[in-house]
């Protein structure tokens, strides 16, 4: 039967809209609790209590913060470039959220599953620098401007190594589709070593271990998290690109930053930790739905990032650049060649 107008033009967009809204709500709730977890972990490392007043164990702290940001008055500096000043936090927030549209959280559970999903996520993450640059420039003030210059150089540098990591994964998988990337990790190094059951040894983290490390550190640098938070280093730049922002625009910047962090955790999970695959493909583990494994793995990556933030002191800017260009770039470039060579020689490609 010929599909009616209603079926072709009304139902699919509505269905997609519904999925997107659901994704958005879940994502925002996750961000609220990731923020809480971040502060709690940071506090625990420093032997403090962390947020514990609003709600039981401080569980509602993020919502109190949200309310506070929203009802405060937004202040726009008189000499700021008004249009760009207000556009910048929107760019930061919207870009970070849009990349989540292609992330598969379980088998087939994604708003869209394009052929080039991985490239799409990479493209979006390379654009996130614009929010910071635009905000820093439009504020028309010293500290934000310095921050925007720093972040431009930093994020472009670390994108290079992230790009090479993605190329090695692409070589192993043979596809840029994120679902294919996860499914390709069902059989991997573990299977080649003769382990009968599909396990966590098959995932890319073991076969591509140097790239896993490079990606983890680059992800921290790409999201401007400590120890690479030079664009907002409070001891030098007040609050970096966010210095002149208040109220909801500030909230949007903050939200964008944390959504970008969840995105990087999800990406690490998909690229290296087998996405929604169970750690061992036997009875009690493969009964658990994929989404649970995905969330657990993502949380684990986030916990590692939070620990790095609380333990490692901030890098100096020249050290940061040295790490990006003189350490990560040669390592990842060499790994691209080695991976391609191994795949070709062993006939796994």
């Amino acid at each position: 039967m010929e599909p009616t107008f209603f079926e072709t033009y009304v139902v699919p967009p509505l269905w997609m809209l519904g999925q997107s809204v659901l994704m958005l709500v879940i994502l925002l709730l996750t961000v609220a609790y990731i923020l809480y977890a971040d502060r709690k972990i940071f506090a625990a490392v420093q032997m403090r209590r962390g947020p514990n007043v609003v709600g039981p164990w401080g569980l509602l702290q993020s919502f109190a913060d949200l309310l506070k940001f929203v009802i405060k008055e937004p202040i726009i500096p008189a000499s700021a470039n008004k249009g760009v000043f207000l556009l910048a936090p929107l760019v930061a927030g919207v870009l970070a959220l849009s990349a989540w549209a292609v992330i598969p959280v379980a088998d087939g559970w994604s708003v869209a599953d394009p052929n080039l999903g991985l490239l799409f996520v990479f493209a979006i993450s390379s654009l996130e620098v614009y929010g910071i640059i635009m905000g820093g420039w439009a504020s028309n003030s010293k500290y934000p401007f310095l921050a925007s210059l720093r972040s431009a150089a930093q994020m472009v540098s670390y994108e290079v190594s992230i790009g090479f990591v993605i190329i090695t994964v692409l070589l192993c998988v043979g596809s840029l589709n994120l679902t294919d990337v996860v499914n390709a990790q069902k059989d991997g190094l573990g299977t080649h070593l003769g382990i009968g059951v599909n396990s966590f040894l098959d995932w890319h983290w073991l076969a591509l271990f140097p790239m896993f490390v490079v990606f983890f550190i680059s992800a921290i640098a790409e999201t401007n998290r400590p120890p690479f938070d030079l664009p907002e280093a409070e001891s030098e730049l007040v609050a970096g690109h966010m210095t002149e922002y208040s109220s909801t625009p500030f909230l949007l910047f903050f939200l964008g930053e944390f959504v970008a962090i969840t995105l990087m955790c999800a990406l690490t999970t998909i690229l290296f930790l087998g996405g929604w695959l169970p750690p061992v493909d036997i009875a009690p583990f493969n009964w658990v739905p994929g989404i649970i494994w995905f969330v657990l793995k993502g949380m684990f990556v986030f916990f590692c990032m939070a620990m790095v933030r609380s333990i490692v002191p901030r890098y100096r800017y020249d050290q940061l650049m040295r790490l990006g260009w003189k350490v990560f770039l040669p390592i990842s470039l060499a790994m691209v060649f080695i991976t391609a060579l191994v795949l070709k020689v062993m006939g796994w490609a």
Partner: protein
Amino acid sequence: MVVASLFFYLFATVTVASAFMVIASRNPVHSVLFLILAFFNAAGLFMLTGAEFLALILIVVYVGAVAVLFLFVVMMLDVDFAEMREGFLQYLPIGALIGLVLAIELILVLGSFAIDTETVAATAVQPIPDLAETSNIKALGDLLYTKYIFFFQLSGLILLVAMVGAIVLTLSHRPDVKRQNVAEQVARDPNDVVLASVKSGEGI
């Protein structure tokens, strides 16, 4: 198809409008931001024709890297906009003339230009695969790394030479600056470290 053509007109209009704003806006930073908007919509047009790889690479390379550096440089420029616009009317006739000549040339060339699918199929080095059969990257890679490998490598070499040249031109090694040698620091023997308790106000 209706939706596709609607999107085509949307992307095309915004591309042309933002391209116009690139030259029309008074603030160079706004110009760069409009340039980025134009890139985005061009990527949208690529996407509509099914060239998804080109679309995303356009965003990654041009918007994600080139335009960032562009913006970086433009933000640092100290330009007096009033002064820049002073000679505008003086140069308007000659600028308009050049524009007119270019426009006429473009119309002459493109007016007789049409893609004849049969000729293309006959002269193409290998048959153009259908979109449903193979993905963008595979089709591009098949051509780029087999038939055109020499040109591909050559263009890479040219870029490398340009990069090395730029570094050589700008690198000035100053011997009097104290530098951090990480390898030396890491290789230090912990037993050689002298721990001294220094009295306040005296120093070592």
